């Protein structure tokens, strides 16, 4: 049983193969890491899976449904959500409002109900706010609930994005470098959050440079180099792979 499968996926940017003939599968309930040197195509792969880029060729399936080229908002409705390496927080809103937007798909989105502030909408909105506050507590941001996102520190914003993604109730959560730019303590806190998310039954796919974190929490690791698959397997298998070591240390593979 696979949740997400990628078959012969390629993406070209004007002759440059950012991702080339890539195939792999992600099983539900696991933490799956994608690693590789800078420029290996990790973020491009994320953008392909989440519908921000359209593949040049190849297939991406979610539950056997071909999703290549679908818009991100459609994929969100199918149970996929993500965070970004360079933050995509709504800086014009408060922390709790950011998370409430994450809840968007599960709310009454009628224009009339919103304009007239119908009681049913107000009731659901209040529940949505309560749920958003819970999610902020879950990622350890309870002290920032009503803070403007623009006034929050970087490490908190990273976690805010995770809370927002979780509010969409995804089955598959993609995290693009959640620990980038964080100090050791913050990194460990993110680590805990990811483990908790996985334990709650959400399948997690992770792009990350922090090897200590990747080796510690991953069930499965995919190694990319120059847009192609270099290796795949459990953390122990990947660590023992001479090609992976060569790609990272720059030796002769």
């Amino acid at each position, binding site marked *: 049983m696979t949740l997400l499968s990628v078959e012969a996926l390629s993406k070209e940017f004007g002759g440059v193969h950012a991702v080339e003939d890539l195939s792999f599968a992600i099983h539900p309930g696991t933490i799956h890491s994608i690693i590789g040197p800078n420029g290996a195509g990790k973020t491009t792969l994320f953008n392909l899976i*989440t*519908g*921000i880029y359209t593949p040049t060729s190849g297939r991406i399936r979610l539950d056997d449904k071909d999703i290549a080229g679908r*818009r*991100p*908002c459609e*994929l*969100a*409705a199918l149970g996929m*959500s*993500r965070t*970004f390496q360079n933050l*995509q*927080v*709504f*800086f*014009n*809103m*408060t922390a*709790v*409002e*950011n998370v*409430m*937007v*994450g809840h*968007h*798909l599960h*709310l*009454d*989105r*009628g*224009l009339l*109900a*919103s*304009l*007239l*502030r119908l009681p049913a*909408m107000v009731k659901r*909105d209040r529940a*949505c706010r309560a749920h958003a506050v819970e999610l902020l507590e879950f990622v350890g941001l309870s002290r920032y609930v*009503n803070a403007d*996102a623009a006034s929050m520190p970087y490490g908190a914003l990273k976690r805010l*994005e995770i809370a*927002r*993604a979780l*509010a*969409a109730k995804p089955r598959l959560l993609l995290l693009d470098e959640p620990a980038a730019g964080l100090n050791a303590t913050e990194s460990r806190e993110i680590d805990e959050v990811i483990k908790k998310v996985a334990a709650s039954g959400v399948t997690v796919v992770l792009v990350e440079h922090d090897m200590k974190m990747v080796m510690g929490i991953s069930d499965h690791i995919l190694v990319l180099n120059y847009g192609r698959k270099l290796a795949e397997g459990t953390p122990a298998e990947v660590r023992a792979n001479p090609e992976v070591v060569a790609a990272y240390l720059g030796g002769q593979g």
Partner: protein
Amino acid sequence: MWKSPRTGGLGLLAILLAAAPLTFPNAYFYDVGVNALFNAVLCVGLNLLIGYGGQISLGHAGFFALGAYGTAILTGRYALPPVAAMLVAAGGVGLLAFVVGRPILKLKGHYLAMATLGIGIIIHIVLKTESWLTGGPDGIGVDPFHLAGLAVAGDQAWYWLAAGLLLLAVWLSLNLVDSPVGRALRAVHGSEVGAEVVGVDTARSKVLVFVVSAVFASLVGSLFAHKNAFITPDIGSFFRSIELVTMVVLGGMASTFGAVIGAVILTLLPQFLAAFEDYEAMVLGAIMMGTMIFMPKGLLPSLRLLLSKRRAA
């Protein structure tokens, strides 16, 4: 608890609207007041698009003019009751905004500004040249307004109607901003891709607010036509569109009350500057430049920031 400006702000606005006529020495003040309120309603709608949605329209006077001409033609030529004409015109303008909004709201920044500018200019030209329908550059007369059999005549009656409409518009706007639809809209402003990945259909959000703001403009246009009894194509000119955007920016983007304040100030200002005659346009320009340089967020948000800083200190 989070603060909501809904209750306090709306109440204060109602009191101000009720008290303002006490300072009016003659009918002319009512006339200026009605214009200020009409602009305020228009700007509350435009602020949803510009301030909250982060989009721009340099053609909004076009939608205003279409509402005005729609009503003038439907009541004059086809003898529709004013309220029905107003709603039909608003429906037509909404449909037009939907049809043109879908392709042009894919554009961003300067390109979107250019495209909306184009729409405004096309509407202006059509109103000017299709004289068999619109009366051409000479304009067209409009029948008086009546509501449920009661004629609305005289500046005082118009003032109370416009004040009621403004309260309604502000209420709707405050509701929308603090609702799922409004949050999605503000999220589009904050980060389009961030909004998309949690399920916000950003294209739909943008078109929706474009349509809503165009309908606001059309409704005000219809009332404006009835009140003035005579309209010319220049009510839909490019300069009028710019004036509306300036009101929103001056008062404060992403602030419903800011939009009201900006509209009132820029409608009243020429009255005070009339004494300077030749320098009127210059003073107006200087005020706009000063705002952009010293208060880029606009009057109300800047004041609020100042107050919260002082409170914190």
